[in-house]
């Protein structure tokens, strides 16, 4: 049993191409089905996570997907605009300043500004309240890939050390408080039974902890459960092509096992999601993985 399902901000990250968006979509779908009002947030991801659920790709505006599930693709320009408008409140001033091409070209070079406003928007959703209760029971963040994830999630930590006191420092302080509170925020790192993703997962897990984020689970995607027993390969000696196929299945199952062993050094549950034998990912696939994820996170097998 992990604490991840009880969190309000669920951060999903991992190496590029391991299935982060799929896991985020599956997780958000299951949360929403359990009756919690859920927001699936992509970070400048092009709306892929919503598309995996069979909906039109999410845009920069909040969109309703189904039941208790909403989604948004947080993009730097729009997040900047929202942030500035909250601060200065005047659309006219915003246009004069931020739509000035000179200013735009300068803003692109201010380190961490896009990350700050995007992360700020996501954390702001946690604080949104309506009628005395939070608007969102859960926010699932489909976070950027490894290196970028650490710099993205590390922005408040870095800025707190460098920013002079002022508006931005105040913003960053509450962002930081939300991110490092283990009752609010939890992270899941998605991995694959392959060398590079495993190494990156271990580094990412350590990196997240260095940022004081609670690591709650590792998700081992495309796992292969053992099927053949040692005697099987010998019995296939007469059919070399079948034997090769079986041997490669045995090897894949072995890779899954050794990945799970190595990942367990992070001391959090390693949840295996079955490999799906299909071209690409679709709604049906996400649902299968969602059920496996839910049962894994809840402590089943």
């Amino acid at each position, binding site marked *: 049993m992990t604490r991840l399902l009880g969190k309000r901000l669920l951060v999903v990250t991992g190496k590029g191409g391991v299935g982060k968006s799929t896991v985020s979509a599956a997780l958000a779908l299951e949360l929403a089905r359990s009756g919690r009002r859920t927001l699936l947030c992509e970070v400048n991801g092009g709306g892929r996570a919503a598309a995996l659920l069979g909906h039109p790709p999410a845009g920069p505006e909040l969109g309703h997907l189904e039941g208790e599930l909403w989604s948004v693709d947080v993009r730097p320009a729009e997040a900047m605009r929202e942030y500035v408008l909250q601060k200065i409140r005047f659309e006219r001033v915003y246009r004069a300043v931020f739509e000035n091409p000179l200013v735009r070209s300068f803003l692109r070079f201010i380190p961490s500004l896009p990350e700050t406003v995007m992360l700020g928007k996501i954390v702001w959703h946690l604080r949104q309240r309506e009628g005395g209760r939070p608007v969102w029971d859960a926010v699932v963040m489909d976070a950027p890939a490894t290196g970028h994830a650490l710099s993205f999630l590390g922005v408040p930590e870095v800025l707190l050390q460098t920013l002079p006191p002022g508006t931005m420092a105040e913003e960053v302080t509450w962002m930081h408080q939300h991110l490092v509170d283990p009752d609010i925020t939890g992270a899941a790192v998605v991995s694959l039974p392959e060398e590079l993703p495993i190494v990156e997962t271990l580094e990412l897990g350590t990196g997240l902890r260095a940022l004081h984020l609670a690591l709650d689970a590792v998700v081992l995607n495309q796992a292969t459960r053992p099927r053949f027993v040692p005697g099987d390969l010998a019995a296939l000696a007469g059919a070399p092509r079948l034997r090769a196929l079986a041997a490669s299945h045995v090897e894949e199952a072995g890779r899954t096992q050794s990945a799970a062993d190595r990942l367990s050094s992070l001391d959090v549950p390693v949840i295996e999601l079955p490999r799906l*034998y299909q071209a690409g990912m679709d709604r049906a696939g996400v649902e299968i993985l969602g059920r496996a994820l839910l049962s894994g996170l809840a402590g089943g097998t």
Partner: protein
Amino acid sequence: MNPLDVALRTRGVVVCVGPGGVGKTTLAAALALQGGALGRRSLVCTIDPARRLASALGLSELGNVARPIPEASLRGAGIRLPAPVEAMMLDMKQSWDELIARTASEEQRERILANRFYQSLSTALAGSQEYIALEKLWELHSARPGDLVVLDTPPTAHALDFLDAPARILEFLETDAARWLLTPALRGAQVGLRLFGLGGNLIGRTLSRIVGMQTLSDLSAFLLAMSGLNASFRERASSVRALLASETTTFVLVTSPAPERRDEAVRFHAALRAQGLDVAAVVVNQVHPSLAPEDVASCRRLPEPLRTKMELTLQEAQALAAADESGVESMAQAVSPTPLLTVPRFPEQVHDLGALWRAGAHLVAAAPGGV
């Protein structure tokens, strides 16, 4: 004639491009080895190779310098090369520092390297990795006339990020804002404050409220320090562009049969062609091989429970192979007339020199089009 075989014999620069996680680095190294096998002095410049691949190539943690692939490793893998093959690992930050060291005066250099905006330019700024990779390519190629240089590139989802990198870095240095800021008349102590004076003080006040005054003055200090480098940057960027478009250079677009990667690669291919760049071949890596009908037949003769287990395994393998096959077919049509080559998924992960050698040999011998 195999298009990669031709490219390795005739070109000076082969740029491997494509989405991340498709084995681009591995194939770049495999191609350089084949270049050596064809008798050409070759160099592969890799970006962030897997640790085992790096050690197979004899690359220590301290990259950025070309080193011969150790003779002992080659011998150990039974490979004999008529021409030496070198490998290097591109260190982004160090390459940027070297670029500044080459182009800036001593006093300018110190100010640039110490400025925190330089830190973000050299490490985090979108396009800066691509820019420095291309910049390094030009340097490597110029230093090795007649040799083969194979460049691995940062994983890039959008072709334009890669191709436009030099233009975007230049754009940064040459925006109206930068030009305006850098006119000598304005180089005063108050430059940070006067920076946004064009739109009245409103802009300056608003910006400093959002990002802080310190940030604004740091940024203007950085642009000031970079001034004067524009001319050499511009010159270099146009040399890079000319090299990419010349007959010396060809691109190899690497992808995998996974639907998303495939779509990215098709868009990448279109963008390369639209820019008038030569694409020697599209390589679809990690293709699941299709099965023979007799496999199903021999499966039926197996005793239970082995038969059921084997049938399930066959079905899974067949599903993957069928998905890949139709994907490769539609991709071949989408990139036509560029030849498409496939590399089967090797059961072992390609990390040692022997496996690299086999993958490369397969590539330069394969007939275009088939799975």
